[in-house]
């Protein structure tokens, strides 16, 4: 069966440095995947290639039956591929609610979505903010938010694009235990609503509790892909994380 996302032999170089080497990955609709690897293993480069921020030099990315090679980042978002960033990148001059208005205006509307009138847009923004617990900060500017609220805004903005697949790139970095739980609950709830999720994370407790499948990258290569409990006991994975 063809997956929602099919990455086939993806390759990316930065000059002489091989960032990704023949990465293949198949993601089925509704899956929760954890993508792990040490710093510099190519996780973010892979995400950037999948989302169109970087162009892959080899291989292909197919999403929902469409070949995405050559498609720009916004075209991929409109196809249903959303992402969050490692460091939150809110639209600083726009209010929290307006940050969510952007994907509604440019992605959902471009797909012919129903949130057309200003009133509908506003109601949808508030719904999304309520879901992530930011409805009381709708008119604030992003700089007035705490770290966890900023992460939630990032997630809400990705959710506003009504994605089929969400790639959460280190959405829990720098958060406390309870804050990590909050984000995990959000992601699980989103997955229950049918959104496929790839979680990139260093917090293994979060990854293990969230993922149905674990993919491990090391030095631009995929070294493991399977059931999380099996993958973390894989000797090659142990070597990559703990050394020889």
């Amino acid at each position, binding site marked *: 069966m063809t997956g929602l996302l099919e990455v086939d032999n993806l390759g990316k170089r930065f000059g002489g440095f091989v960032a990704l080497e023949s990465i293949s990955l198949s993601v089925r609709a509704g899956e929760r995947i954890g993508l792990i690897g040490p710093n510099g293993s190519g996780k973010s480069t892979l995400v950037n290639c999948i*989302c*169109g*921020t970087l162009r892959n030099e080899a291989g292909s990315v197919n999403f929902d039956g469409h070949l995405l090679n050559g498609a*720009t*980042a*916004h075209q991929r*978002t*409109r196809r249903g591929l*959303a*992402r969050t*960033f490692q460091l939150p*990148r*809110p*639209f*600083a*001059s*726009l*209010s929290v*609610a*307006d940050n969510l*208005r*952007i*994907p509604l*205006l*440019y*992605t959902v*509307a*471009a797909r012919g979505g129903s949130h057309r009138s*200003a009133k509908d847009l*506003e109601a949808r*923004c*508030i719904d999304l*903010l*309520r879901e992530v617990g930011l*409805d*009381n*900060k*709708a*008119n*604030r*500017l992003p700089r*007035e938010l705490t770290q966890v609220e900023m992460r939630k805004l990032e997630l809400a*903005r*990705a959710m*506003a*694009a009504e994605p089929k697949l969400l790639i959460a790139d280190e959405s829990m970095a720098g958060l406390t235990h309870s804050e990590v739980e909050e984000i995990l609950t959000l992601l699980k709830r989103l997955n229950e609503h049918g959104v496929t999720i790839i979680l990139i994370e260093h917090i293994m407790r979060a990854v293990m509790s969230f993922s149905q499948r674990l993919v491990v990258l090391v030095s631009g290569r995929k070294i493991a892909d399977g059931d999380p409990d099996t993958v973390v006991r894989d000797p090659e994975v142990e070597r990559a994380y703990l050394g020889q």
Partner: protein
Amino acid sequence: MRSGLFLLICLIVGGGVFAAALALGNDYYFFAGYVVLQYVVLATAWNILGGYCGYVNFGSAAFFALGAYSTVAIHRLTPLPIPILVAIGGIVSGFVGFGMGYLTLRLRGAFFAIATLALAVVLETLIVNWDFVGGSRGAYIVRPETIAPFGSYIKYLFMIMMLLAVGSVTIARLIERSRLGYGFATIRDDELAAEASGVPTLRLKLIATTISGALMGCAGAPFPYYIGYLQPSSAFGLDYAVNSIAMPLIGGTTSWVGPLIGAILLGSLQQIATVTISSAVNLLIVGFLLVGFVIVAPNGIIGLVHKYLQHRPDDMVGRRRVSTDAPEVAP
């Protein structure tokens, strides 16, 4: 406020200004007012790309000059009414703006700014070597002394520039409150995040360069009739490049009000300085004010007002606040 009503109010205000200048009974006010209004158009046009999208254009003078030289070229072929020349100037400059955008918008920050400056230098060189429009010698455009029903021709030019100023401010306000305006704001804030939210950044930047360039061209089109003798150094003058950047910066770049206030304030100050001291101090005034504002009020006069009123930027520029059931948390 709806755009139609806004336009009507602007037209009424514009009519009032015209009537006030008439009541003063001295054509000098029309000459001075024309220059101030011309800067309203230039500053507003610059702000669409520089303020809304965050792309600093140092080549404003090139677009202005293109409008002016389009008029000279057409005038040499067949004299046409000024409103038609304004439209032609706008189309020519808009087309060049689109081309410039296409070639340079993959550049960001200082690189984009330098590329726009280079465009101005290239265009000036072309005009200097184009004999048909006078080349380095310049070109004379003899304007009629009078025109019905305005009487003196300068009143007619003033009215045209007034309509252009009203039009450009209305366009800027319309953009600011539209889907396009939100898209521009995301480009200014974070292009990567904008693309990830589905914003077609390259297309939007092309729209911004085209609109901005076209409005600057419109402002330049009546200029040969105003000045009477057009030479490259006057059309490509440093004043236009500097003023069209300084005015929005001093007024405030995030809203249509900023360039309007900046242009009226700075333009009027320069006109007063021209008659009381010398036109040579105009750029000095701009320099001092710019340095002062960068230090004291980096967000311009609008920023100062917001700070004073403890308002959020979106309150004044028309971004609607959303109402929620949840009690709002104090910042």
